[in-house]
């Protein structure tokens, strides 16, 4: 892997721009590079990995995402055709398939390539910031490493909280001269033959749903928060407990379609949340052998061959799936519990559960719902990138194209890489 800018002169380019360094972007990069193409990954965060790095486990194998990421990072380390720009965004894409001019804006990291990852800077940093990687459930210092698997393993400074030269403690602490507080945003051009949009997704803002209690009760959390809660490197060190009092979770309720399939919020189905909740039910059960879990759903969606996974999870007598959408979450202040209400559709009666923890299975929102680059790219009404002639030479991959699971995202990314490669080959004649 290589972080320098590659100067390319000819009018057609055997190189591919990949916007986004999540699982789809990484996969597309590795697959294309190993097929002989030059790739440039532009990632807006300080490290690669995207949303999957925040997951504790994947369904259906209940295996850690770091495992697959590590192999991909390993493949990237040994490949000089892969160039990575972190804290960077694509501002502009112009040109035609085979010959695109791209403008990249890279925000200052304030830490240069001399960083060895020794952590001395963190030890002296006086400023705390909410840890966005953990959805604000804990803090880091203003100079931070996104997470233990961060790649590239270089620290970064959050300039929204850091006092920069007014403090400068880290500069003195760094033995390697790796901190440069005068670093500025830079903009630079890039010439590529094809573009892959692997811009991914962001979690839906659950606070918009007034009747499910998120933002009002601290024990109502979202599914993405649940992943961090269960992750060994998460805010609680992997202990699945109530956020309000740190007590164990004896009863948990999963609320499916918290925003999805809902004309008030997201009209589409996010496709992965049922499987996500089934998976997270196992987190709860693993943390507490007596815990009870209820999953309230409209349709338990386990597309493809995932049906076996739901069967395996639901074979646990302590995990119950109830057909019916939760429409009310209120607190029983006396008991310190949350009361969750729904209609049990198959018995046609109103039911409720007294829960310690309520997990809202929120959906994926297209990252491109804002901050779009200036380019000829077709989007659908939900801000997903259209995979067709409306975006010539520009191919969506993974959740940029639609809400999909990791397995589909990697497939998608591989296919997008193929499309990009043949675009370049065709343009070169």
């Amino acid at each position, binding site marked *: 892997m290589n972080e320098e800018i590659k100067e390319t002169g000819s009018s057609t380019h055997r190189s591919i721009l990949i916007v986004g360094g999540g699982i789809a972007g990484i996969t597309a990069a590795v697959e294309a590079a*190993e097929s002989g193409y030059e790739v440039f990954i532009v990632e807006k965060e300080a490290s690669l990995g995207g949303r999957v790095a925040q997951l504790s486990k994947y369904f259906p194998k209940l*295996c850690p995402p770091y495992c697959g990421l590590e192999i991909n990072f390993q493949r990237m380390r040994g490949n000089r055709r892969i160039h990575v720009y972190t804290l960077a965004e694509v501002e502009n894409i112009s040109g035609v398939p085979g010959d695109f001019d791209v403008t990249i804006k890279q925000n200052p990291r304030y830490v240069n390539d001399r960083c*060895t990852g020794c952590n001395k800077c963190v030890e002296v940093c006086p400023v705390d910031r909410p840890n966005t990687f953990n959805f604000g459930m804990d803090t880091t210092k203003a100079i931070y490493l996104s997470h233990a698997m961060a790649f590239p393993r270089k620290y970064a400074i959050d300039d929204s909280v850091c006092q920069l030269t007014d403090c400068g403690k880290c500069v003195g602490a760094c*033995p390697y001269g790796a901190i440069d507080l005068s670093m500025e945003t830079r903009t630079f051009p890039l010439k590529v033959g094809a573009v892959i949009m692997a811009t991914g997704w962001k979690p839906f803002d659950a606070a918009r749903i007034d009747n499910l209690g998120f933002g009002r009760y601290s024990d109502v959390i979202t599914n993405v928060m649940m992943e961090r809660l269960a992750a060994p490197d998460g805010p609680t060190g992997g202990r699945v407990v109530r956020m309000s009092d740190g007590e164990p979770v004896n009863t948990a309720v999963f609320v499916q379609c918290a925003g999805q399939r809902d004309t008030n919020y997201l009209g589409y189905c996010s496709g*992965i949340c049922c499987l996500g909740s089934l998976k997270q039910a196992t987190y709860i059960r693993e943390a507490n052998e007596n815990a009870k879990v209820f999953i309230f759903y409209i349709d338990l969606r386990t597309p493809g061959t995932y049906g076996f996974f739901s069967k395996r999870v639901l074979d646990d007598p302590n995990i119950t799936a109830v057909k019916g959408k939760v429409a009310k979450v209120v607190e029983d202040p006396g008991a310190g519990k949350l009361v969750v209400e729904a209609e049990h559709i198959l018995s046609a009666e109103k039911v409720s559960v007294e829960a310690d923890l309520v997990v809202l299975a929120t959906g994926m929102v297209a990252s491109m719902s804002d901050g779009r680059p200036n380019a000829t790219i077709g989007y659908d009404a939900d801000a997903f990138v259209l995979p067709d002639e409306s975006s010539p030479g520009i191919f969506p991959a993974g959740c940029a194209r639609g809400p999909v699971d990791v*397995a589909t995202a990697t497939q998608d990314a591989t296919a997008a890489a193929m499309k990009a490669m043949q675009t370049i080959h*065709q343009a070169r004649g």
Partner: protein
Amino acid sequence: MNKNIGVYVCSGCGIGECMDAEQLVALGSDEGGAAVVRTSPAFCLEDVQLIRDDLDSGAVDSAVVAACSHRVNADVFSFGTAFVERVNIREQVAWSHPPNDPETQEIANDYLRMGIVRAQKAVAPTPYTEAHERTVLVVGGGSAGLAAARDAARAGYDVVLVEKGASLGGYAASLYRQFPKRPPYRALAPIDVAGSIEQLQSLPNVRTLLEAEVVETSGQPGRFTVTVRRDGADELITAGAIVMATGWIPADADTFDAYGRGRYANVVSSMELEAMAARGSIVRPSNGSPVARAAVVVCDGKGDDRHRPYGGNVSSLVALKQALYIREQYPDSIVYVLYGDMQTPGPYEYFYKRVQEDEGILFSRGDIRSVTENGDHDVVLEVESTVVGGPVRLSLDLLVLSEDMVPATADAASGALSLSYLQGKELPTTKFGFADSHFICFPYETRRTGIYSAGSVRQSMDLAASAQDGSAAALKAIQCIEQASAGAAVHPRVGDLSFPDVFLQKCTSCGRCMQECPFGALETGEKGRPVLDSNRCRRCGICMGACPVQVISFADYSVDMLAGMIKAVEMPEDDEDRPRILVLACENDAYPALDMAGIGRLQYAQSARVIPVRCLGSVNSILIADAVSRGFDAVMLMGCKAGEDYQCHYIRGSELLETRMQNVKETLDRLALESERVTVAEVAISESDKIPAMIDDVVQTVKEIGLNPMKGF
């Protein structure tokens, strides 16, 4: 062979504050006989030039860099073909053990000793390259196959497309309409099979063979030899890689026996309805009369486990589409759509909503209680657990059952490549018979390197997904051709130029290596000895672990080398406080987890000595015996999860280890040693937090059963 080794000890990142770097330097020159020894406060910065200069001047030919883990700065410490051994004294020593402690220093010393041994014994591999073929062979001319052929050709590769039918298009050609694939996801769309075929045929570098069958596949990536039979004549085709897109076949009709299929005239499959719709004559099959009441049942709900452990988004969407077919022909009809859970993920939700708008289509979840027939051949369907409020009985002119998609590989006659591999003609499959091996992170990889599956033979999927799959598998095929041409490995040890070398004179022809290779890379040669198809090899070393006479080795990875590293550890005698535990850690997950423990500054027992291995399956049991005879008090084999949800990157490595452990126990018994001394620890890459306790447990065990009595012998 004695090499000129340079030892470079970094003191940065807290290493120098934790241990005596000078002591390591001294060890390198005295004990290790290094030609050059140097220290630096940060070898990864300007001082890397010192190493480069030493290599360039010829003062050293191999570098042992005692610094951070090999997982960082790989590009910095890479010097062309020179062998570089990274000794991890940062993450796994300085960051995970108390500073300025003789035992901590001892770990670093041992690691350096091991590194020097490895550098001495390792040889930079010379790739095995041979004339290679760049043609992509695509088997199957359906949606996936067409896309694979088209995309490989358009990316500049020659393609041979083999289709067993008389025309291309596959399943798509028999469909009346497809459900919408683009916004606003409302109207059924025609399928332009002819257009796809035309597009393919316009490409000059595609050769299409119709009514052709693959009767034999042999060889390896870069040079597969495929025998294709047409009109009774066989033709040999050479291909660099193969895309297998043989699609799906309907499940045995008796799968849905309980639903009356085959018994009642007016119960049809979705394929049969598709044909009726294409003809424009959806009727009651019993008497050809119009349909007023019909039901389309999605047979993949939770209640359908007895039939199939998986369902799919396809059957729900097909049911929605077919309900529209019936309504289109009979505007006054009523069509029930019955399902377990409506599977319309993503934007297909909009299509579901659109179909709901049709007032003649009535939806309910439901479990089919019974299907019977009355005297007029009306189908009587009883459904329970509905949303209507109890069981219902429906009288129908027509009952449509989802066709059940089974991968073509399930039927040997239907789509096999007839591999002439020692391990069998069939492509190994995962759960439910799909030809895949790593279906989350690394799709398309089958367990036959160079053969990539695409479309419904890999997963049940719709036309759009199949085409997408075909494109992606074509990339994998191209990539494999490119890597094979350089003699390099594909996923996961991409670019590895080494390969297993068998010292045939000493081979006993036991065949274990050929049987255990997860990728069938070894074939039987003369006198029953193994012959390697090097481009099939993924370099996991499982053969090396399997060989009972240790005659299989890699240029840079061998039993001898590992044994030497084990031997290099200085063994304290009879000191109860200083036991020694050998940790053989899988480089894929366990070793990174140990690194991560260091990054998290977790402390664990100083008695552990970690050696990374390519896969636990590559651990030859003699190494364990060696370790205990050398005086190690315990051996931990730290690796990935085995079993159904295996996390082993080589599929079988962790599983094979279990059988090898039998051997190990026998060896221990023979030496009159406790079998508890050897343990297998499953550790996921994210479980660095559990590592200290795991190692402590072993230390505790040693305390309980006492030190290894073999010590000092």
